[in-house]
């Protein structure tokens, strides 16, 4: 029988039952390889359920540093009888199937083109541990110990992770290491090891961290100076606020009084969450919320008010599969049009597209400056894949000399020197007007914030000319916006390819990998990674300078393509959609196959 052979290049998948404590063991597995200096890309594939349904975790190990999902399972660890048939079928020919053979495997699950490694996990745990919960939990640790032997994971690295993890619960260290040893010993006694797929220490991760995008965004909000977080729980965004809360308690609590330099309010719904954010920012605090598509739908009413009344807002949208309730625990980039034009009337919203946890941190922190500077909502568009999975990322940095940009706010002294304050007067000619905060000056600077049409002095008016002046100024501000946003990233040494790739967010990892794959077949591309909306001149030029641009995104309707056509007036023929919308993160092979297929169809 064929044996897969690979060093530091494989996909290992774990099939577990939701709620059985497998997550920490699986994380330990990924982290051990990461600590051996080898790039890893873990992904959770979990149900919208509390306990009992199948859940998977897969880890791509890639010496080349490819962090996108790869199709094909090289080694499957199956401890869930419910999904057995599917799990057996998903292993590549020549691959390995590790399972709990306490109960004999039914012949229908036996393939003759994969290798079976049976370990009596239940029996071993029942024999060595007495507490029922421990018996269940340590089954997970047993298979990690077995994988250490099978894949050649360094023992000191694994035990080191356990020591770190239970630093505050030392009595758990010994039984965890014992469970690891049980698994390792069983392999030593019964199988040839290591396998032909294995890992070897490298020095490829440098000072990188392994962190999820939601934690990064929560930290970004803390560093960006948010004092108010108002939110409503929704998968997959909840952990953004959880992270903010955790670090705010640690770092923003007055050590003497125990009082907090922040407030976190779990609102009654997403409408109220956005209202609280706007009440706080209108009153001069930095505030944010995090949600997902269904929440953005509800917040659209307030997003229109924020756009029109010019109130800063920071919103982290961790996108999931839509429409409606859709696939709450699967990933998509399908809220682009909803977010870009959120609310009725002529509205436009500023979007940021982070591609890595570092960018989740940087963009979220920057969003507070941008919101204050531009006096409008800034929507950070991440997704479930980026938000809820750990990603290898450069570490986050903060420059202690960096000061917050609070934008154009007049204090009492500035008001003293002004003849007549006009909230919507374009004094500087950039479309951005000066605002005042309540309570600033006894007789100057007060005005009425409203969602109705108004003149330069914030007075209600239905005069067509005044209305037009105001909405045209908002377009001027929209143009000004472009120079404040992070620039797109170009991947082209010179303009020598006729074809270009365009991508953003989590599509970046597999898109860059697909470029390598196609280059191996002699097909070269230039590429651009978008980081923000509105699009700037570089985006326009990139599309102009290429005959054809493949727009790679994770939704059915080619929403980014539509946005580009709508905003830049691009000839639709020029933009070809490359799409994946089944809820799984897009892979390099999917991209390559669609693009190459397109060439073959044309050629």
């Amino acid at each position, binding site marked *: 029988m064929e044996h897969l052979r690979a060093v530091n290049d494989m996909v290992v998948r774990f099939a577990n039952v939701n709620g059985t404590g497998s997550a920490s063991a699986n994380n330990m597995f990924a982290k051990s390889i990461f600590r051996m200096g080898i790039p890893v890309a873990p992904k959770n594939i979990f149900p919208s359920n509390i306990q009992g349904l199948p859940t998977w975790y897969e880890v791509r190990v890639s010496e080349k540093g490819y962090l996108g999902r790869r199709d094909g399972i090289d080694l499957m660890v199956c401890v869930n009888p419910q999904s057995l048939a599917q799990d057996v079928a998903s292993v590549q020919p020549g691959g390995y199937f590790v399972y709990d053979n306490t109960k004999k495997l039914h012949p229908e699950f036996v393939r003759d083109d994969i290798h079976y490694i049976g370990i009596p996990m239940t029996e071993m745990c029942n024999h060595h541990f007495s507490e029922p919960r421990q018996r269940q939990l340590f089954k997970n640790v047993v298979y990690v110990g077995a994988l250490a032997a099978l894949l050649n994971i360094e023992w000191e690295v694994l035990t080191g992770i356990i020591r770190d993890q239970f630093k505050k619960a030392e009595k758990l260290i010994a039984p965890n290491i014992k469970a690891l040893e049980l698994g390792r010993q069983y392999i030593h006694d019964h199988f040839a090891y290591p396998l032909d797929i294995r890992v070897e220490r490298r020095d490829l991760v440098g000072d990188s961290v392994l962190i999820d995008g939601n934690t990064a965004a929560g930290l970004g909000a803390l560093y960006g100076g948010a004092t108010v977080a108002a939110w409503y729980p929704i998968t997959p965004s909840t952990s953004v606020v959880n992270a903010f809360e955790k*670090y705010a308690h640690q770092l923003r609590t007055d050590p003497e009084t125990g009082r907090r330099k*922040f407030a976190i309010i779990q609102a009654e719904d997403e409408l*109220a969450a*956005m209202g609280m954010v706007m009440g706080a920012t209108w009153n001069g605090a930095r505030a944010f919320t995090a949600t997902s598509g269904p929440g953005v739908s509800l917040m659209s009413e307030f997003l229109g008010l924020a756009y029109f009344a010019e109130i800063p807002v920071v919103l982290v949208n961790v996108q999931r599969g839509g429409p409606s309730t859709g696939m709450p625990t699967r990933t998509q980039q399908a809220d682009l049009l909803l977010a870009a034009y959120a609310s009725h009337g002529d509205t436009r919203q500023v979007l940021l597209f982070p591609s890595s946890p570092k960018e989740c941190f940087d963009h979220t922190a920057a969003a507070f400056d941008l919101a204050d500077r531009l006096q409008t909502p800034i929507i950070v568009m991440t997704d479930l894949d980026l938000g809820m999975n750990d990603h290898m990322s450069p570490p986050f940095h903060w420059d202690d000399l960096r000061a917050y940009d609070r934008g154009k706010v007049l204090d009492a002294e500035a008001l003293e020197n002004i003849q007549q304050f006009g909230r919507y007067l374009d004094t500087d000619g950039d479309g951005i007007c000066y605002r005042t905060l*309540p309570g600033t000056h006894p007789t100057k600077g*007060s005005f*009425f914030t409203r969602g109705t049409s108004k003149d330069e002095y914030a007075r209600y008016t239905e005069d067509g000319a005044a209305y037009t002046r105001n909405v045209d100024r908002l377009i001027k501000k929209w143009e000004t916006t472009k120079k404040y946003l992070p620039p797109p990233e170009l991947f082209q040494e010179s303009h020598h390819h006729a074809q270009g790739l365009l991508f953003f967010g989590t599509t970046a990892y597999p898109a860059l990998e697909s470029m390598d794959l196609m280059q191996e077949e002699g097909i070269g591309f230039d590429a651009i990674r978008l980081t923000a909306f509105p699009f700037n001149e570089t985006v326009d030029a990139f599309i102009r300078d290429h005959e054809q641009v493949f727009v790679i995104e994770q939704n059915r309707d080619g929403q980014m393509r539509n946005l580009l056509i709508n905003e830049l007036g691009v000839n639709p023929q020029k933009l070809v959609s490359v799409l994946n919308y089944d809820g799984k993160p897009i892979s390099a092979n999917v991209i390559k196959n669609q693009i190459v297929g397109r060439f073959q169809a044309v050629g």
Partner: protein
Amino acid sequence: MWGCGHDSISAAIVQACYEQSVEPHRLAKLSGIGCSSKTPTYFLSNSHGFNSVHGRMPSIATGASLANRELIYLGVSGDGDSASIGMGQFVHVIRRNVNMVYIVMNNGCYGLTKGQNSATADVNAASKSGSANLYPTIDLVGLALELGATFVARSFSGDKTQLVPLIKAAMAHPGFAFIDVVSPCVTFNNKPTSTKSYDYVREHQEATSSIDFVPSRDEIVIDYREGDSTVVELHDGSALHLHKLAPHWDPRDRASAVNRLLTAKAKGEVLTGLLYIDPGSQDMHELEQTVFQPLNTLQGKDLCPGAGALGKIMAGFR
């Protein structure tokens, strides 16, 4: 329009602020959508105002209060704004005990859209277009009491003597102070049979008490009239002197307030005055244990943990 109840309430707000020497710029006016919500345009022009979206003023007020605990927040809403489209937010702003005055100018109808019945309209009341209200009336006062509001009052736009001290007391109350003010709509809902009309309220008003609001700095010189009187001390040393008109009732006893309200309703009376107050009220900032300094005045050095802390956090992810 002459006689619009909302106008009288606006005047009462101005008088209360004047008598309390409230600096207009230390007060923020917040509203939603509707006739009532438009009124803040017409008073206290040196105060910032925020005319938000329909039924969502409570969330704006909550955020504003979080950002700066030192201003006075005056929310002005209507029966459509609070009892229908904004019911969810009304309920939850009470629950959070946001430190604000929340006035509902209650006329039982939608004035801006030509007088449709609202959720506080009387059963069988005919709207201007002629269709009758088939559904039970929502009593916001009863609801607020039930939800645990720490200051609940009802008044009448035509009774400034009662309304002004109520607003002053509401401003001094450390928490959510709710005043439901019956405010006849002379255009759409002032038929004598309507419980929101001038004639009906004047005929059927039953006050729990008359009130004197005594700021802490004032010497207390009250001319007590006959009957019981109760003194309620507020957190800042000011006091409410309630000259009780209604028997079997204690303003600090929620159950007796609910009881009294239901009895009045059964008799077709409009019960007005301060119905309930919790002198031990703890507002949202106390519950959230925020610092005393307003959050909107904290600077980068207070807020940003810096590069060193970030480096330590990063080390935990390797």
